[in-house]
């Protein structure tokens, strides 16, 4: 019992010091007045939040939103069948494949992003292959485009989509599928009416942990997108490091956090609905 108390105390202290306190600082900073001399100063003001509605930031926000959404959809389209296949495999090959998927994580993602640069460049792997096959005459412009940014984001974030889906699929009760078949459901009906609803918690969980980091991964768009302001993360980074408007950078961060909160709330609501409909509960994730 004392051990349990100790663990709880340590965890709470850790969270308070390194999660709660910094976030309160960010929140306070976002309410201060910008001051390039002192980084932030009194009085308290909502000025930074009203600036969010300036067209330049609103449109950057939408651009960032669409890029992240597209990344999520692509991850889902690739990850869903992959996770299904993986979950159906016998234990040993499944463990091996999951292990192989985790191996790239041993290398820093920044270094892997540099490697993507080499692959997508004008003299990179893709272009030189296509050129030598005679399929194209001049190198395709792949690097420094939104395509390259999405490519990099999908590459880095795909495992985060696959893992929750594999868990969901491997917990899926096979007898339900057999019952559906016995009752005359076609493969398509079995997918739409049985598999898809049952895997929704995995889909939502995976989508959330792909979508949210995608909005902030400024180094991917710095390196692969040509350092244009493509993601919200780029703008936040610039506000802190280059423009030195800390309150505004903090306001942007808070906006991102609020958005994350809203999406999590949506996740909980969706889960409840699925539960009411007799789907999986959260414990099955």
């Amino acid at each position: 019992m004392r051990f349990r108390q100790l663990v709880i105390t340590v965890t709470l202290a850790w969270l308070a010091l390194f999660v709660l306190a910094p976030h309160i600082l960010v929140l306070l900073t976002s309410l201060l007045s910008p001051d390039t001399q002192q980084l932030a100063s009194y009085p308290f003001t909502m000025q930074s939040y009203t600036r969010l509605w300036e067209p330049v930031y609103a449109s950057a926000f939408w651009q960032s939103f669409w890029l992240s959404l597209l990344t999520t959809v692509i991850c889902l389209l690739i990850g869903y069948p992959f996770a299904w296949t993986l979950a159906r495999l016998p234990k040993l090959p499944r463990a091996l494949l999951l292990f192989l998927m985790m191996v790239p994580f041993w290398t820093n993602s920044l270094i892997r992003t540099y490697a993507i640069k080499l692959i997508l460049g004008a003299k990179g792997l893709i272009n030189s292959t296509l050129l030598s096959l005679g399929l194209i005459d001049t190198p395709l412009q792949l690097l420094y485009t939104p395509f390259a940014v999405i490519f990099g984001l999908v590459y880095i974030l795909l495992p985060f989509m696959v893992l929750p889906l594999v868990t969901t699929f491997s917990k899926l009760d096979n007898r339900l599928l057999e019952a559906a078949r016995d009752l005359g459901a076609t493969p398509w009906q079995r997918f739409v009416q049985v598999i898809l609803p049952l895997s929704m918690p995995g889909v939502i969980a995976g989508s959330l942990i792909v979508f949210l980091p995608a909005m902030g991964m400024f180094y991917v768009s710095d390196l692969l997108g040509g350092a244009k302001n493509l993601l919200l993360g780029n703008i936040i980074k610039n506000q802190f490091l280059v423009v030195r408007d800390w309150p505004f950078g903090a306001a942007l961060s808070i906006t991102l956090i609020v958005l994350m909160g809203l999406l999590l709330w949506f996740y909980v609501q969706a889960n409840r609905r699925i539960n009411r409909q007799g789907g999986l509960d959260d414990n099955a994730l």
Partner: protein
Amino acid sequence: MTLRAIVSSVLCVLSVAAHADGKVVVYNWAEYIPEGVLEQFTEKTGIKVEYSTYDNNETMYAKLKLQNGKGYDIVVPSTYLVSRMRKEGLIQPIDHARLTNYKHLDPDLLDKPYDPGNQYSIPYLWGSTAIGVNSDDIDPASITGWADLWDEQWRGKLLLIDDMREVFHMAYKINGVSTNTTDPAQIEQAYEKLKTLMPNVLVFNADAPREPFLAGDVSLGMLWSGEASMAQEENAAIEYVYPSEGAGFWIDNFVIPAGAENVENAHKFLDFMLRPEVAKQAVEEIGYATPNLTARDLLDEETRNNPIIFPSADVVKAGEFQEDIGEEANALMNDYWEKLKSGQ
């Protein structure tokens, strides 16, 4: 104010742990020191060097500001930042009596308005910002000025230096105004001009703008003189064109932050970097011009006469050196800069 006090006190606690004798903490531009020089310095003096790098002036300034001028013993701001940091008390006077090699410096590059008498700063390297052209893809003779970058045929093809002042310089020169203007109308005009350039931009780069040229991803764009001469060593086709409207010039300077903990060692490091043989090595390896006259004479003729590194007096006269433009103009340019980078 209070917030900054909290943050800086936390950083103080962290930096106390790192405090030790016999070291100097250097914060320099990326790829901006000849190889082996730090080791030589440690060998000669027994002083250890803690070395880290940045890729734009603003990042360095933000860090120094946040830490109240503590944490580093040497940083290397460009001219315009030297005057700002001096005014804000972020840097401390340099004791010239302790610099036995100060005498090697070119008087033409000393005692400038940004730091009269060089009380606070010692020039390290200087260079220019002009146009890089890959002559394999583009005839360099067809590119004569900044205005040529606006041509529609370069849609989605250009590299720009990821630096506000450098990019605005192009528009200022085309509009025929000073690169150090603080006039809001002139700044806005420059923004309007640059807006029409943005569709041509493929990539912004400030850590190694030569890399996209060498990788074949771009064939035209802004380039720094040192990057151009380094690029030429790998690919002779990459040429450097001084634009007719005037190139941008800057001097990077060693300064000692006000809160430096190893002031004595910082002076020793400065004096070491001023040695002609070290300055010579810097030109040879980094490809920027040295203000060190003795070192210039030590260079081989080819390097000394390389117009990329040491431009002619006419080219320098046509161009303009960057100076501090003050907070207001800076903030205004920042707003426009954010818009430009977001494609607006």
